[in-house]
């Protein structure tokens, strides 16, 4: 049976959780249809240390490409290498629907004239076709597509498949770079993690988000304090807040920002404009604190507190600290 390729995304010498999600997805397909999982791991020398983690999540073979030129992301060298590899015959290739994945995967598909399913939340493989679901229209409509070309190129929305350990041999094989990476026209000159080393919105099990109800930038401290009390929370914001420069644009949750699906989303002083709700709709549990009991956020919140965030947040932060300490 044909094999399944999974791109194990890395950044700054680290394997990303999204990479383990793609390997887990590829494993699910290989277990159902036969064939092996081939994980592709690309990075600066040393990245091979993550091959055992790829194997633990279900890679039969880990194809490792190490080169000094991959200290930063090098899209053109990776695209050429993946296209060459996929040409040798695969049933499907999984990528993360991340900033890097989106940059990479459509180029691979266009180079090979293959159908590409972007930002997929569910997939089903049959002999001659792959059917996928991809939420669109700010997650208000679920689109179902059929891909008939082989290999099927798929990027997975963060959290659509959670990493599961399913250990396989994980034989390590070197992967040759299809072009001299130094000849790439696109050059990444710097990669830097955001200040503070916070958990990314896409990875955080808990998100505490703030809106205009916080009245001024300094009060965002209350949101940060609550996030810190959880210990595994990221801070998000509405567009109004990022437009006013209270928070960076990268914190914006909504139609034109990040689409997130944490286990717990706490909306603080957020009225719930449709463009914001689009970004958090798929969260498992939603809490809203807002002083206007008619605010639309209360229509989607599992638990609402009508009240002033400035008064409620410090009390909630203390209560969460105590709950965590007692846990």
């Amino acid at each position, binding site marked *: 049976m044909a094999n399944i390729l999974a791109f194990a995304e890395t950044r700054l010498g680290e394997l990303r959780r999204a990479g383990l999600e793609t390997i887990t997805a590829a494993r699910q397909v290989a277990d159902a249809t036969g064939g092996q999982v081939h994980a592709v791991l690309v990075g600066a020398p040393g990245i091979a240390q993550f091959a055992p983690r790829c194997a633990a999540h279900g890679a039969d073979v880990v194809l490792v490409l190490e080169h000094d030129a991959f200290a930063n992301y090098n899209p053109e060298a990776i695209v050429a290498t993946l296209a060459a590899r996929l040409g040798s015959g695969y049933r499907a290739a999984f990528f993360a629907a*991340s900033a890097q994945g989106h*940059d990479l995967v459509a180029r691979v598909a266009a180079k090979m004239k293959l159908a590409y399913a972007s930002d997929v939340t569910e997939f089903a493989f049959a002999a001659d076709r792959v059917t996928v679901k991809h939420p669109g229209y700010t997650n208000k409509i679920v689109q179902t597509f059929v891909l008939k070309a082989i290999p099927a190129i798929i990027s997975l929305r963060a959290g659509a498949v959670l990493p599961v350990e399913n250990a396989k041999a994980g034989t390590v094989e070197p992967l040759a770079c299809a072009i001299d990476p130094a000849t790439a026209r*696109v050059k990444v000159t710097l990669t*830097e993690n955001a200040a503070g080393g916070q958990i990314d919105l896409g990875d955080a099990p808990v998100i505490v988000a703030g809106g205009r109800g916080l009245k001024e930038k300094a009060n965002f401290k209350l949101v940060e304090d609550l996030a810190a009390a959880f210990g595994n929370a990221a801070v998000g914001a509405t567009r109004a807040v990022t437009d006013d420069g209270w928070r960076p644009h990268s914190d914006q949750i909504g139609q034109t920002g990040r689409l997130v699906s944490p286990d717990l989303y706490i909306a603080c002083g957020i009225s719930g404009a449709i463009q914001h709700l689009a970004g958090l709709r798929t969260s498992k549990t939603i809490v809203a604190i807002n002083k206007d009991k008619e605010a639309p956020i209360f229509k989607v919140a599992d638990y609402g507190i009508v009240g002033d965030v400035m008064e409620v947040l410090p009390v*909630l932060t203390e209560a969460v600290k105590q709950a965590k300490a007692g846990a």
Partner: protein
Amino acid sequence: MKLAVCVKRVPDMEGRFKIASSGVAIDEAGLKYDMSDFDGYAAEVAIQITEKLGAGEVTIISLGPDVVQETLRKALSMGAHRAVHLKQDTPVSDGLAIATALAAELKDGGYDLVLLGRMAVDTQNRSTGAFVAELLGVPIISAISKLEVENGVVKARRELEGAYELVECPLPAVVTIDEGIARARYPSLKGIMAAKKKPMDIKPAQLGAITYQLEKLELPAERAAGRIIGEGKDAVPELVRLLKEEAKVL
């Protein structure tokens, strides 16, 4: 400098959507349409480049039925110089087929820089820019939040999840535009009048092969109606109890 911007006409996302009886389209009745947000930013960025240089030309391209001419006219009224309507009367769900038609139009246009939004807000595929760049054989920097074009080199900043990159590439190139650079301006009355006299070419879209077929549209399951558990800080103990015992997230 010659710039091209590919724009898409999309329904207003604030609207309530219904699925049409065909099952593969939304019911257009009562919906407002406009340029996709990020495509508006891309048009604005291109127009600002020519304004700053005091030279250059911005061509706006859109694919679809005749109504996309409204969207093209809006970009002209913002300050773009000419428009191309790639006529395609039936909807197409395959992004690579659409990008093939866009690339066919762009190929011999002598464009230094092609700009697109980082995604269309309706289909949310985030792929058209990369498809177009690959089909044209030029470099692409996607989802950028800062842009400088100088001495034939594009310098940009890309936002990643919890990080950023600084990226460079030579012209000609494709870039896709994220939040943070520019918001689309509102056309002035003078701009709207001037747009009426600007050239608009109309030609058939030369689509690529269709291998990605839309099968069905559905509305997602509704969330259960929300519940208010109390008022003010006195409600905090009950919230903490529910998060622990019912939702099991604390």
